[in-house]
């Protein structure tokens, strides 16, 4: 076999290898980047939830979507405590209210 032929074969192997490696490398890189982006978004959401100090975040089936994350960010309802009524003792004989108990 001529040198020209086996050099051609080696070049073809080299080029095919490069194409495969770069192609697979690109696919893996793309997947990794997508995952990292989503991970970053999720992390951001969790941080916001912590800042909001809501009681327990409502777990929804689609908690990884932006919409549900927004729902989770609703401010908690402010509950005003009902004042406890003060009881004044009444005189059992005359029925008048007495400060002294």
């Amino acid at each position: 076999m001529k040198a020209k032929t086996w050099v051609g074969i080696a070049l073809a192997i080299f080029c095919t290898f490069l194409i495969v490696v770069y192609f697979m490398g690109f696919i893996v890189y793309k997947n990794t980047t997508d995952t990292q982006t989503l991970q970053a978004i999720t992390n951001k959401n969790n941080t916001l939830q912590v800042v909001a100090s809501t009681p327990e975040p409502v777990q929804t089936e689609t908690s990884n979507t932006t919409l549900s994350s927004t729902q989770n960010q609703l401010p908690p309802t402010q509950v005003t405590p009902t004042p406890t009524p003060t009881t004044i003792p009444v005189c059992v004989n005359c029925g008048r209210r007495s400060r002294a108990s």
Partner: protein
Amino acid sequence: MVNILRKRGTAIILMLCIITFIIWAMIEPIALRFSDYASSTHSLGQITGLIGMVLFAWTFVLSSRAKWVEDSFDGLDKMYKAHHMIGSLAFVLILFHPILLVVKFIPSDWNLAATYLWPSGSWAVNFGIVALLLMIFLLVLTFYIRMKYEKWRISHQMLGVAYVLAIIHIFMVTTDISRSIPLKVWMIIICLIGLIAHLQVSYLKLGKRFEYTVYSVETNNKFTTIILRPKGNAMKFKSGQFAYIKFNKRGFEERHPFTIAVKQEDKIGFVIKNLGDYTSHVSELESGVTADVEGPYGRFDYTQANKDQIWIAGGIGITPFLSFSNDIPKTKFKHNISLYYCAVNDSELVYWNELNKISETMKNFHVIPFCADKRGRISVDVLERESGILNKAFFICGPPPMMQSLKDALVKRGVKKEDIHREDFSFK
């Protein structure tokens, strides 16, 4: 290939590769180097790179036309064949070097594999990548693109740049060379030899040079005969040898090899077939033009075989036999010689009358014209029938396919390989 392996020069190259391997193997136990998939591919990548580099360096030595190199390959034509072969092998090994280094990451980490072969912040690796890409580009030009000689020469010279970048790469990158002083010293020696040879080939003078002037130029449509006269010392040579000539005239500055076909006292003559872009213009040379003659080169010598001989010339391959036939009366060669002069037709039989005259005066010398338009292509059957082939030495010069097919056929018929001598003119 088999022929090349027989030469002393090939033994030297093999020895260089073995020494490199031994030094490399001594740095770390082989068992450890090939203990698992990752380390095995990494080690293979390293050794292909190292041996590829040694061979790359030696290709420059093989183009240096140094006398000791020519001697070790038994002629410049064989030396250039080895240069071609070793250069190709070096290229293939260097191509596989990054592949094997990267294969270890596959399939576990495609991302790392891809980034490994991509330029990065590491200059050591970047030099290697650029060297490899430049080498690929220049060798694709050499192997697959037909170029004019001058452009081809420049592209081949540029391989020196790829070589220098590769040297920077191997000494900068953190690997066995940086860890082991013996390997570092060995590679420095090899790389320096290659570098010196490259500088000599590209920028310094090669071989002995003689100054001649054009004495006469005769031409017909197909052939041109140029006779040169020495200005100072005449070049001493043996019949059948060749020289590189450069004419000091615009358009003729390229150095080309031609067989010294004619010898007239101290004058020398070259018979040139009007074939290529250079040779078809040599008839435009005129007397008085100075010529730089470098040589002599070649080991094609009929006196080395002390037995009856068959000479086979194809076309312009007659030139060394013209020189031989003029030499026969002087050497008083006693054995019988049959010269088969193969050509397309009668008009291609250059110097036919001169050969016939010698044949008439010498009883042991016979010239047989073999024109393709009348007798077809020459074959071993014809040689066997007309002259007999056993216990004879064969000297063949002509187109490479013709020489190869005749050689193969002769070997098949029982002729010993050492009895077949050929002169290759297909080198640049």
